[in-house]
């Protein structure tokens, strides 16, 4: 195969993997502190993207036209709003069900996701149709033979990497991160040590949702289009990525995200006349990986407490 096309596939895959990873990181964080499946995550991402779009309209309306200011404001506003939304889901829907079977949080978050999705579809102006997302990043592109690298893709990749590094620093180097890790390891003991359990959970939900908002905006900037059900599939794939990578730490989520993107790209390219089977292929591989490494690729280092 032409080396230029190969490079193109790699860059496409990386971009896709970056978005999957950002979604997966959120799932890993929630698993960590509360050991739950939060099925509204994809829809929170979608809300993040729509919040970004609304902010953009607002900025246009008040006459701020510098792309950089717009970009920064969009990211900040959308992260904050989505973070608040996430922490509200955590506080009012997830925490009250703490004493119930863990799976019941799945149902309540699933329904929360449905409500969010339906709200955007019904109440956002013309929300049932796809919406154009402004391209705020410079759109120059550099070509080497068959390989085209767009400046905006490169910037998004770098930005995504920075976000992941920031999260990893936050978890591993700060006091807040220490508290999150303590709660993740053993909520009861963490409480005894004087950690405000509820606060840590809510903050974790806010962080995870904020990252989802970033993924949503990246999605919008990269594809220049968002729609009300974009979160459904991203949510499922992000969830799968987090688990196949291993829930022990956020590197598992990142590995899973890129693995999933790689599988899908490979499936679409290597099965040229049967590319429709690429999802069948990707999910079959996932099942096999799970049979081979039952606790994910980066196995959790835990010992069974009896």
């Amino acid at each position: 195969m032409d080396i230029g096309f190969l490079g193109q596939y790699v860059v496409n895959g990386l971009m896709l993997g970056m978005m999957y990873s950002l979604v997966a990181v959120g799932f890993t964080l929630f698993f960590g502190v509360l050991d739950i499946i939060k099925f509204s995550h994809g829809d929170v991402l979608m809300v993040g993207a729509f919040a970004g779009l609304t902010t953009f309209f607002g900025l246009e309306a008040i006459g701020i036209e510098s792309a950089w200011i717009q970009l920064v404001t969009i990211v900040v506003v959308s992260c904050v709003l989505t973070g608040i939304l996430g922490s509200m889901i955590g506080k009012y829907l997830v925490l009250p069900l703490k004493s119930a079977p863990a799976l019941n949080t799945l149902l309540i978050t699933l329904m929360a996701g449905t409500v969010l999705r339906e709200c955007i579809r019904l109440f956002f102006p013309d929300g049932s149709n796809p919406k154009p997302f402004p391209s705020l990043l410079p759109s120059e592109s550099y070509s080497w033979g068959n390989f085209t690298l767009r400046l905006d893709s490169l910037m998004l990749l770098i930005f995504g990497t920075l976000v992941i590094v920031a999260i990893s620093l936050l978890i591993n180097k700060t006091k807040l991160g220490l508290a999150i890790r303590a709660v993740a390891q053993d909520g009861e003991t963490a409480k005894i040590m004087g950690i405000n359990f509820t606060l840590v959970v809510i903050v974790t939900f806010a962080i995870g949702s904020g990252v989802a908002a970033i993924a949503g905006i990246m999605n919008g900037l990269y594809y220049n289009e968002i729609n009300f059900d974009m979160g459904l599939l991203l949510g499922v794939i992000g969830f799968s990525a987090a688990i196949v990578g291993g829930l022990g730490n956020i590197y598992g989520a990142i590995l899973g995200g890129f693995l999933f993107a790689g599988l899908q790209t490979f499936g679409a390219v290597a099965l040229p006349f049967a590319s429709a089977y690429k999802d069948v292929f990707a999910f079959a591989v996932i099942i096999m990986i799970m049979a081979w490494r039952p606790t994910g690729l980066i196995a959790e280092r835990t010992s069974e407490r009896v």
Partner: protein
Amino acid sequence: MQKTFRILTFLVMVCLVGSLLTTAALAKEKVKVAFIGPLTGGVSANGIGGRNSAQLAVNLRNADPSAKYEYEMISLDDECKPNIGVQVATKAAADKHVIAAATHYCSAVAMGAVGTYNKFGLPVIVWGAVLPDVTYGNDYKEVHRVNGTMINQNQVAAKFMRDMGYKTWVIIHDTTDYGKGHNTYFTKELEKVGGKILGRFGVTADQQDFTAELTKVKQLNPDVVYFGGLTNIGVRIRLQMEKLGVDAQFQGTSGIKSDAFLNTLGPLSEGALSFQEGAPIDKLPGGKYFTEQYDKAGFERGHEAYGPFAFAAMNLILDTIEDVGPNRKKVRKSLNKVNGYESIVGEISFDDHGQNKVAAITKYVGQDGKWVVWEDSEYGNGKRKLKKL
């Protein structure tokens, strides 16, 4: 318990008063008709557009003092899922007061539900589903369709594109019945006129990222990218073609002929092709009337591509009921014989399968943010050029 009794009494009162009020308002005989379409889920924009259009037909009729009956339209949500489709079809068909219905946007749902209409003898007119088998796969006298099938669309499309001088195609289709059907019929028609298909990609209807497929397309370097699917992923594919520098003509099907396609793509919609059954509504006097009335009615959402068909289907139903009276069997017989009926989407004549055989296919091209009929467009008269020509 006392509380319960009080509530019960209240309920009974509410029912009584309600029924009294309705009987009081009864001047004309009331006739029920039904509309079924996807009001929730991914394609709900089309379902809501169809619902509004059908509702508009009913409202206009009710406002008409010369109408013999007063019509009430019940609208049901099939979620674009066959099992729910059968459920709501049963609901409409089992209700003996419902005389006829305009039904279904999704082909798989229509396929599942036609048997139910036959079983209960409810005459229906399909307003959106394009799979040929909906009418041709059975002998049900109850089932009619105002819109053409994907066979007609692709016949015209393949011939038109070959005549333009295009030689090679890549097909991208979604894996629903809609996309797969278009893939099959376009391939068939293209073989007849001698075009070459370089590659074929099936994508899921909720896919976001097409960069892998499109990079492959870039490698194959076709003249035309044929897309069989609906607006939501059509938009994504067109956008990502641009990002990856895939320089090919974009040819769509009826599924992308929506305002959302144009609005979301902006300048990128320039030169995109779409083929739709029916005469161009803006050109027919009835069509203008429809768009005017639709705007006047103040619906929150647009009527989308198949709204006019829903309007035409409902109008045909109402006309038939006015004509033969609210009786299912008579309505069915009368519908079977429809020939040369003037509607806002052109002339309607049903063949022995209830399929509208006047399959006028209109070719549209995206020009300055509007869908323009090919013959009237600057592309058609040579001022602008499609890609790779």
